[in-house]
């Protein structure tokens, strides 16, 4: 009887080989994760301005990779699972890229075509309200 696993022939199907990670490896990963968390927390008080988002995402990606590779054991699994999981991130990247491109592109087109976003309509209404309150005789009406 021949047994195939993930497209590969298994030579001794009734013998199972499990990779067991050593405890020190989990501990090391955990300490690095704690260190990176405290680092991002402290850096956030200083504020990095425009760089803060890319830096935060970079550190979060390192942390996520550590969790996936060692805690989730993906590094030692058959590559099928890594392929599967990474493919999902390609689709996330496509999703993000195209929607954000679209967001940027349609702004100008909407303006050209005279199409108003709900947000600009609401902005104008609030402004008109504020002006009315300002112009109205009598005690000034609070906007809130």
């Amino acid at each position, binding site marked *: *009887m021949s*047994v195939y*696993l*993930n497209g590969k022939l*298994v030579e001794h*199907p*009734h013998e*199972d080989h*499990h990779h*067991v*990670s050593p*405890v020190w490896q*989990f*501990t090391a*990963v*955990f300490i690095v*994760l*704690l260190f990176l*968390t*405290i680092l*991002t*927390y402290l850096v*956030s008080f200083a*504020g990095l301005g425009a760089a*803060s*988002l890319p830096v*935060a*995402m970079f*550190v*979060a990606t390192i*942390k*996520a990779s550590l*969790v*996936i590779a*060692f*805690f*989730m*054991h993906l590094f030692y*699994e*058959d590559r*099928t*699972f890594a392929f*599967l*999981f990474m*493919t*999902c*991130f390609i*689709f*996330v990247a496509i*999703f*993000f890229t195209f*929607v*954000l491109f679209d*967001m940027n592109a349609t702004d100008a087109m909407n303006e050209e075509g005279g199409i108003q976003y709900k*947000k600009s309509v609401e*902005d104008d209404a*609030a402004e008109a309200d504020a002006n009315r309150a300002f112009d109205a005789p009598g005690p000034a009406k609070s906007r*809130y």
Partner: protein
Amino acid sequence: MSTTAHKDEERPWFLAHHFDTVGQQVSSAKLGMWLFCCTEVLMFSGLFLAYFILRQMYPEMVLVASEELNKTAGGVNTIVLLTSSFTMALGVRAAQTNNQKALERNLLLTIACAFIFMIVKYFEYTSKIEHGFLPGNWYSAAEHGYMLPKYSRVFFGVYFTMTGLHGVHVLVGIGVLSWIFIRARRREFSSENYVAVECAGLYWHIVDLVWIFLFPLLYLVK
């Protein structure tokens, strides 16, 4: 092919009848679990995209509104979740090495961390609700004396949706891990049969993974 009778004698009790070998059974279970992890990532990616769109449309509003979130509570919760991931990984290792006591202890520690996370979350939510930082029509920060930029209600909508869905995952995780703990108490798991523990672990690590991105984006955006 050997005879059916001979094969049946060799079959361990945990091997389902539709698999030939334990390796096949483990591999199928893991394939299913990793596929589920993919769907989880894709589901949360939609919410993350909503956050990025909001941030692009109202950069100042997101920065000011996020200042109202409690960074320390978020940081403590991050450490709690990372610790629970660590104990979960140790729990899977305990099952792999036939260490029954360590398996039960690590599962209990993981469940305890999940409860701590939810308790901290409860206090965070209570303070947001008290100050009127609620999504959409329920937003009433102005009545409570907080002057936040316009459309802050949308930020709190994103905040409650993202952390709320994540919180639901933590609650489900408590259920799943309790089920695994009961099975561990019945001594169902061994170095040959631990794929259920491993798959529950994968789920728990995905919950941690989502929080690793949620925390800096929502709490530390400055």
